[in-house]
């Protein structure tokens, strides 16, 4: 289980000097079906290689299952399936980003499966543009905004929305018999 550590690569400076005073955050980006997505780096706990997950009965399709993260049982979510992209076989080079999210005042740890890690960027808050209503294949509620970095479009994800959907809600109300 080799931990792929992308956090050491120097952050790309994309803003000019006079914008340095603006509030900015660091974002970690990853690739998914050729597109680049960004996450607020403060949500990211660690990055690790894929290991087989244990499937959980009667769970949503995007739930790969649960794995053992140093004694804690954490759920793994396949973002491709979550976003409605075609499924891809898992291999040892498949990357799992472990996120630490806070829902309802309770801290939870979850993993998301992505294709590959990309970069870390410093992005000023005002560079993130609101996303247009139609945003490709994925549910717009997961998108916090769009940002252009080096002429590429990067989708900034709202981790909270992504991981606190009803299918992952703490109570099992959503899976009552239907």
């Amino acid at each position, binding site marked *: 289980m080799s931990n792929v550590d992308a956090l050491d690569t120097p952050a790309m400076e994309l803003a000019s000097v006079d914008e340095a005073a603006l509030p900015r955050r660091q974002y970690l980006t990853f690739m998914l079906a050729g597109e680049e997505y960004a996450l607020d780096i403060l949500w990211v706990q660690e990055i690790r290689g894929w290991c*087989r*997950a*244990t*499937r*959980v*009965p*009667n*769970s949503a399709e995007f739930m790969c*299952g*649960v*794995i*053992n993260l*140093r*004694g*804690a*049982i*954490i*759920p793994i979510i396949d973002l491709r399936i979550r976003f409605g992209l075609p499924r891809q076989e898992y291999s040892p080079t498949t990357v799992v980003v472990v996120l630490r999210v806070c829902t309802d005042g309770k801290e*939870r*740890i*979850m993993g998301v499966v992505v294709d590959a890690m990309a970069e870390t960027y410093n992005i000023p808050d005002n560079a993130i543009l609101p996303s247009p209503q139609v945003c490709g294949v994925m549910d717009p509620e997961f998108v916090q905004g769009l940002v252009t970095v080096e002429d590429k479009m990067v989708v900034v994800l709202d981790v909270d929305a992504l991981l606190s959907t009803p299918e*992952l*809600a*703490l*109570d*099992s109300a959503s*899976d009552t*018999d239907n």
Partner: protein
Amino acid sequence: MSVDLSQFIPTFLEESFEGLELMESSLLDLDGCDEETINAIFRAAHSIKGGAGTFGFNAVSEFTHIAETLLDEMRSGRRSVESDLVNLLLESVDCIRSLLEAARDGVECDDPQIDTVAARLKAALDATAPADEQPTIEAEPESAAAVNSGWRIEFIPQAQMLETGNEPLMMFQALADLGELTVEVVLDQLPDFSELVPQTLYLQWQLSVAGDCTEADIREVFEWVEDECELTVEPLTSPSAIQAEPSEVTQAESPESATKNPPEPPAVTESAAEPATVPAKAATPKRKAPAESSSIRVDIDKVDALINRVGELVITQSMLSQVGHQVADMEHPATESLYAGLSQLERNTRDLQEEVMRIRMLPISFVFNRFPRMVHDISGKLGKQVELKLSGEQTELDKTVMEKIGDPMVHLVRNSLDHGLENPDERREAGKEECGTVQLNAYHQGGYIVIEISDDGRGLNTQRILEKAVDKGLVPADNQLSEREINELVFMPGFSTADEVSDLSGRGVGMDVVRRNIESLGGHVSVKSEQGVGSTFSISLPLTLAILDGQLIRVGEQETCVIPLVSIVESQQVNAGAMKPMAGQESLYRFRDEYIPLIHLQQLFQLPGKVSALDNCLLVIVEASGTKVGLLVDELLGQQQVVIKSLESNYRRVQGLSGATILGDGSVALIIDIAGVVKMGLDNDSRKALKHHNSQRELLEEARV
């Protein structure tokens, strides 16, 4: 001196409750004038009073003060230890407990019992002490406080007071806050400079505080050092009294002088040596006690984190030894020592794990300790003579299990006292000793702790039980039941043998609740009884809730699941001849003399992979709350103890699972909640039946159209 005391309140409460337990158990042990025991009780009461005063729980400190005064008289031998006094003190322990609970919850305690007991305590105190003197002297400072313009304080600390971290200067500053303070130091004891030991306090003080404050305010300042000094507080206004009294009062202060002066009425000693000024002799052992204590308080979360971490270590270690086996055949000079190192690591990790698990384990005496009191009270009420024997108190079990086993045990012991043991008359007629025996015993057996509650009473009346069971329709009248089976009937819901509902048992909480509670802990309860000789209830419980004996099974192509071993009735190969297809149910299986529904785990859990043919499946017959079902699984893997982990902490509750565990190879296996699976499976079946029914109707309708 403004320190936020509120942070110490939880500790104070915890210690006070422990103190109360100690008082209770010591009071029950008290036979005659065992000085050491009375001292222990007194000290516990004294600490509670002091702490309560500091934290402003005045109701607690006032009440405890009265009890303490009584104890003090017993301690100094001025009052003999009588059983009605002991009972009164036991009741006051209850009152203090409810007062403390009220203080903890921040509510006013309105138990009328408290006033009653307080009045009886006072009455008991007045009974020996000359009644006319004590109240007047006690009342004097109170009434004086109203007109008083200040207080004169004589403060004679013991030489070692500084060593306990008490600083007179701080106290004087606190006094200065109460009013205008004049301090006069007495240097009589001061040695030559060459002989002076800097840690020793040679000084004594005469202080006067002018201002509107009460004696209690002043005593509060000296609260922490009251055991280490001689303190006299008098009102300032009556100079003549001050002139006349000090010598008298200081004399009464020290026990030696009090005994030397026989004419001194005991009441004066009582009021002057008001428990705030405890004689130094008694106080010394109290301060030593904490230093001798060899336990520490640790947050349970820290222990759990440690247990988790060690669990991880065990998994890492087993991964390493797997690798070790693989390289064992390789030709390398270091292979041998690697191997030796690995096996040593294994031993050490196993030991470490055991030790760590033991941290959570406590001796069962924590539960047993509440019974002497209970038996004492109940036997008194019932007019029975009962001797309670405890054995195996040192048997250890997990703290969480311990917290949950108390109530079922109370129920069983109550039953034994109420229904099991006969009245003294009956016992005499039966040729038994008048005093009945209830025995609590605990021991380890395998991974379980067995707790036995036995009595030498009349035993279960099988005839009556059977009649009652037939009456209530619990068993058909023509059934032939063995004695054991009849005895087991008492655990059936809706069963109670008590002819009349008494205060003690038969309050609607039956033995079925006891059984359910125990089974929810993964244990079971059984009864052995012989008519006229006695009955024994034995509870067996897993030592810990964190670990489960599990049967590992394979479901689908690669998923491993764990079935709790306790719920497995039998595992067998599927006998195709025993399958009985039936509408609604996919199939029923003839197991022994009953038909049981089958649940296909892979289908139920919607796990991917080819569903294997029935012939290749194995059948695990499980039982949950009386319902047997057969689970179809692909393979039986092995049995092992697994550490239960929650799925909820990072994911959510999943129907049909009670948690997950981590296997030796680091992968996750799900633990099946049998009751949940049975519910799901049966729901599924009924849904399927409905669907089947509907589709047939649709076909029919289509045909009609």
